[in-house]
């Protein structure tokens, strides 16, 4: 099959080429110099010691944890509630999945303005009186800086440097950057409909006999969900988690359009790092090395899942 061969070249040969670029000191498209640096892993060393990339790792971790929690829990609850509706079922289902059909660039541009300190949500705080109540209690009006906030909550640097050998190599403050919270919200808004669609498909595949049996046993709604529905949703839940984690590790468009790298890289992500290293700073080996980290992270999540699928389909 020629198309198989093409896909293999575009995936595996291309990845091998990129790895080779990371092992060069100064590869450029115009001057393809494959001379290795000394030591050969020098690009990776530079990358790990860069404060920007450390921020990216931190941001990816925070983003992934919160994004998965919010979108999976919201998706599950919405799926349960939507599946219980009769006439309004299709309306709610279509409404909640709608954002997923729209480009991340479009939603990024719009959310950028909704979370702009001078407009959007802050105007709602003002109109609704929440801001003045807040001012009454805390002395200043409620007007968060959202993505332009420079603060980072918490600091586990000393703890991390204890655990990871190599002394004081952390350049970035390891905590929760406040600026990333609106971005997490926007991503969850856009993708919880996908999680809901997956759980809805899972719920509708529960055999009807099980529901009837539960009815005959006079099981309560809560017991039904705890003992029958949730356990049978686990395979679908795993699939959803794997797909959403891979989306989160690769997130690029939404953040590029919504906040960019942010103040002190507070909303920077590896995807943006790779793009800007290659096409803005023209440091191809460094960008390529960061992309290999992205690939490894995605593979850790996706490969076990794909291998299980491979085994499953051979039976």
């Amino acid at each position, binding site marked *: 099959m020629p198309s198989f061969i093409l896909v293999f070249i575009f995936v595996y040969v291309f990845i091998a080429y990129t790895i080779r670029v990371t092992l060069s000191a100064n590869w450029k498209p115009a001057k393809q110099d494959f001379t290795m640096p000394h030591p050969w892993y020098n690009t990776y060393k530079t990358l790990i010691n860069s404060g920007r990339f450390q921020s990216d790792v931190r941001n990816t971790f925070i983003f992934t944890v919160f994004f998965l929690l919010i979108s999976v829990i919201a998706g599950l609850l919405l799926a349960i509630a939507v599946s219980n509706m009769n006439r309004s079922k299709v309306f709610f289902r279509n409404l909640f999945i709608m954002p997923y059909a729209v480009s991340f660039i479009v939603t990024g541009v719009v959310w950028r303005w909704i979370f702009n300190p001078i407009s959007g949500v802050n105007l709602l705080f003002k109109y609704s009186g929440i801001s003045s109540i807040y001012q009454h209690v805390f002395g200043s009006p409620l007007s968060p800086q959202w993505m332009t906030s420079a603060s980072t909550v918490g600091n586990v640097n000393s703890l991390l440097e204890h655990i990871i050998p190599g002394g004081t190599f952390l350049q970035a403050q390891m905590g929760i950057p406040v600026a990333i919270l609106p971005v997490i919200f926007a991503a969850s808004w856009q993708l919880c409909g996908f999680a809901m669609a997956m759980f809805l498909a899972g719920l509708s595949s529960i055999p009807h006999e099980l529901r009837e049996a539960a009815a005959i046993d006079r099981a309560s709604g809560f017991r039904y969900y705890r003992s029958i529905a949730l356990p049978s949703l686990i395979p679908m839940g795993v699939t959803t988690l794997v797909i959403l984690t891979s989306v989160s590790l690769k997130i690029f468009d939404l953040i590029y359009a919504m906040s960019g790298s942010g103040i002190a890289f507070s909303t920077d992500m590896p995807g943006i790092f790779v793009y800007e290293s290659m096409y803005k700073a023209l440091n191809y080996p460094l960008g390529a090395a960061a992309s290999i980290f992205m690939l490894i992270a995605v593979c850790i999540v996706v490969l076990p899942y*794909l291998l299980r699928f491979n085994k499953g389909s051979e039976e």
Partner: protein
Amino acid sequence: MSSQIGSVVGSSKRSKRVQFVLLCLFIPVFIIPFYIVLSASFKTSAGADVSTMWRLPSQWSTEGITKAWQALHSNFTNSVLMVVPAVVISSLIGSLNGFILSKYKFRFSNTLFTLMLVGMFIPYQTILIPMVKFLQYIHLYGTIPGLILVHVVYGIPITSLMFRNFYVSIPKALVEAASIDGAGLMKTFFRIIIPLSIPGFVVAGIFQFTNIWNDFLFGIVTIPNPANQPVTAALNNLSGTQTVDWNVLMAGSLIAALPTALIYLFLGRYYIQGLTAGSVK
């Protein structure tokens, strides 16, 4: 009758009403960005100020949409020229692959398929350097056909998966009957399988249309010249321009979102099928 039993188990009447109210509370959260885009698109430049972004237009006008269309129409055309061939070709190849993978088991066919599925998950940042080099080598760098090629190749894993799952439900006896009648693989595929695959093409086609239309990374990397880029890239450029009016930017968002939103509104059922069909189960 069965739905009555379902309603007894799933939730009582009262708890259903509570769930309905809770769902209604989510409506504003999901509608807000759409409301902002639509209301701002119909404001005049003078009336479009971010300090009054929540208000409906005081004076309805299509000025923003006209200006946004002037700025984006050629990129919109680029997107159309890119997405239509890319969807058709990647769906056709995907259906052929899916057919072979589901009906002709050969040694390592599952391993081969799994290796191909990896291509669906990789971060595309990892392949940008050799991809650009390859496109330059075949003289398609910076062109729409180059972008189509990239979308086709990286679309093959997902379309093959969708069609493979689709063809599992087609009886093997049908394929065997055709081969007894002397039809070869290609003849069986074009005469028997393709006509049966219309629903599969609708689902995979809509799914791929949305994916490719919404792409941004491939668009900006394979085409450096802004005039030849797809509409998502142009919208991002517009958004980065300091002087652009707020109503024009929102109308631009509307234009960039409209094709996929319309497809979703009218063919949402197939799109949702695609969402779950495209997951490895």
